[in-house]
């Protein structure tokens, strides 16, 4: 079974802090994704990566960056946290993109920025 592990379940940070959200997958998947989930807005794609050291912007990349130094690990970075970044963050991975490769999600990190 695919396992996607997010390092923190809950985080509370102050405005202006640099925040790192870590995600590790154990199935040698090519693709990794970061989403945020907000009520009524569903899941919105922040960044994704097709390969090591490769990254692509999603629909809402502003205020975020990512790092993929190893295949199994994909980090989301908030350079200077703001209150509008309070949200549930979900990491996902897939073997490949497209219809035959469903996303496998981690359990999420609920980030509160005060």
């Amino acid at each position: 079974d695919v396992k996607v592990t997010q390092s923190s379940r809950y985080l509370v940070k102050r405005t202006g802090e640099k925040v790192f959200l870590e995600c590790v997958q154990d199935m040698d998947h090519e693709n990794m994704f970061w989403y945020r989930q907000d009520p009524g807005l569903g899941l919105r794609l922040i960044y994704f990566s097709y390969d090591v050291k490769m990254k692509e912007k999603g629909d809402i990349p502003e205020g975020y960056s990512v790092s993929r130094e190893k295949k199994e690990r994909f980090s989301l970075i908030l350079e200077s946290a703001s209150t509008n970044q309070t949200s549930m963050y979900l990491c996902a991975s897939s073997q490949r993109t497209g219809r035959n490769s469903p996303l496998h999600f981690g359990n999420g990190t609920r980030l509160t920025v005060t």
Partner: protein
Amino acid sequence: DQQVKQNSPSLSVQEGRISILNCDYTNSMFDYFLWYKKYPAEGPTFLISISSIKDKNEDGRFTVFLNKSAKHLSLHIVPSQPGDSAVYFCASLNNNAGNMLTFGGGTRLMVKP
């Protein structure tokens, strides 16, 4: 503007009855559709999908219907069980645009015993 919309934020159904969750999309380039289910404190899990060349796909108690002309899909759960209580997200895929999923806002289903 949201390209995938789930207009009902919540739905309450009695155990044993049918649950019908609806989803509308605006992008005619979407050609594959998925439903994900999310329990509290867990990530979404894939439930069922349908290609645009079909109008129905069934998997046990779950059936997804696609009406391309109306740009509408629905998920039917029959019979509904209390364990089906969760948030359901529909998602759409555009094969010609990097195969990235676009998600709807979700519908919270509550199945009462």
